[in-house]
């Protein structure tokens, strides 16, 4: 394994996926550097969420390869990819709604530590896991809500718990699928500042429509259109690219 491959947290090679006549992934070559702050943008139906589902293993590709941290995971189950360091959040909040915030994060950490299959000892004995979960919530300023069921919390806070659950998995790669979707504008700032403060060794891929958020957080942007990668580059280059303006930003302004 050479230097170039090991510097990549996530890579896809010629990834293809079609549903009948609809191609959602068309020979996607994508590279995510270690510790990257990378955004994936594109108009509705460009295949962004399908790409996330392919990478996490919720969808099987027709052809092509997926590598996490330099090793091929194309054939591996979703749960194994998580163990390899791939975590995601969902576009629509998918938490354990009636369980407390602390329980949500504790469940994730217990899976990461490989103790979640233990039937013999009370969960409370794994105090260090609860401590770590609490510290994570504390870091996101959610300590006061730790024992409240998450469905009682404001939506912006639920989005943060989504991130806390993903962080509890100790990821090398974090896929944030529209982290601020559905959040009232005054709470967007909260989500953005949390993403900004994420540990620098985690490679973050943000999939979003919100241009303000993307240009604030990303140091590199990939634009997808109709299942293909149109262009990739630093934010300034993307903003100036006439092709991008035509297919995406222009369309965005017209709305």
């Amino acid at each position: 394994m050479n230097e170039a491959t090991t510097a990549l947290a996530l890579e896809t090679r010629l990834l293809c996926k079609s549903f009948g006549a609809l191609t959602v992934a068309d020979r996607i070559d994508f590279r995510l550097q270690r510790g990257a702050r990378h955004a994936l943008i594109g108009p509705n139906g460009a295949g962004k969420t399908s790409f996330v589902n392919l990478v996490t293993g919720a969808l099987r590709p027709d052809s092509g390869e997926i590598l996490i941290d330099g090793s091929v995971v194309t054939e591996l189950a979703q749960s194994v990819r998580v163990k390899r360091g791939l975590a995601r959040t969902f576009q629509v909040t998918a938490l354990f709604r009636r369980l407390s915030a602390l329980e949500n994060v504790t469940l994730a950490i217990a899976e990461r530590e490989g103790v979640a299959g233990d039937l013999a000892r009370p969960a409370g004995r794994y105090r260090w896991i609860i401590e770590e979960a609490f510290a994570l919530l504390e870091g996101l300023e959610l300590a006061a809500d730790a024992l409240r069921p998450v469905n009682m919390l404001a939506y912006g806070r639920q989005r943060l718990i989504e991130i806390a659950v993903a962080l509890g998995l100790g990821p090398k790669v974090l896929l944030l699928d529209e982290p601020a979707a559905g959040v009232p504008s005054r709470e967007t700032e909260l989500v953005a500042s949390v993403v900004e403060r994420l540990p620098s060794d985690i490679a973050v891929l943000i999939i979003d429509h919100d241009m303000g958020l993307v240009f604030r957080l990303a140091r590199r942007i990939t634009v997808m259109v109709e299942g293909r990668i149109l262009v990739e580059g630093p934010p300034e280059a993307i903003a100036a690219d006439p092709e991008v303006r035509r297919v995406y930003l222009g369309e965005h302004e017209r709305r």
Partner: protein
Amino acid sequence: MATAGPVRADLRAESGAVAVFARRHRVHPLEALPWAAAIAAFALFPSYLPLGAQILATILFALSADLVLGYAGIVTLGHAAFFGVGAYTAGILAAHGWGEPISGLIAAALAAALLGLISGLVVLRTTGLTLLMQTLVVATLLHEAANKASALTGGDDGLQGMVVWPIFGLFRFDLFGRTAYVYCLVVLFLGWWTARQIVQSPFGRSLTGIRENVLRMHAIGAPVMRRRLVIYTFAAGLAGTAGALIAQTTQFVGLGFLGLERSGTILIMLIIGGVGRLYGAFIGVPLYMIAQDRFSAIEPVYWYFEIGLLMVLTVVFARGGLFALIDRLRR
């Protein structure tokens, strides 16, 4: 992220969230209540002990259904399959010259657990209505098999000629049901304690995660199928134990042990008590069975009407079972 001021430190102290969480598995004094009631009933109602023993064994069956439905969120209409297999295992052993009750109970639990494992491998691959239908199919197949294999099971007439030996060679099953009552109570206690340990373990917590959101469970890397299979197998063993208890204490097994009605009734008892809290079984089962006993003494034909009324009242006024009602009144 290192901004833990004095306020935050308080939250982590003994009264704080972490401590509350780490203490959840401790035994609450109120948890002694069902056991105190069971012991009091033994002293107060000596002529009702045979019914009491049936109630205790049925609580164990309902507890097993609660693990599957209330914790793992597996909706089943075939739970009697495991109950029946346990009953027939203990029954056939006792009718063929092996009447030792404890080993009969263990054999019944193992046979039912094996069925849980094998059927679970197929059934648990599906969800929703398909899963419901498949559990129904498993129970129906067994019901038909037991009907056909009448040489072994007695078919429609039921299994005759069980001889159950005294427990430890000392305590014989008496006509007043004293031994049966204590036997069922001890087995129920052991079953409840094991179930409680499991529910409080990280495994048990992950089951509630599966019930709440399977998608998210996959996303945090949990082997969902394996977890479900483990609890399904364990619960099957528990249901088999309950079936064996009733077989041994009544010295009879019939096709009804495997029937759809029994699978349905146990869910009704559980729903009346409250699903997913381990204690619903302790309220719902006695209430249902005592009501059934009383109503059928007054009106031998129409007692289902009162039971139906009880069910309707529960659904209208006590969503989430009587337990939820108690919760609401306390607030």
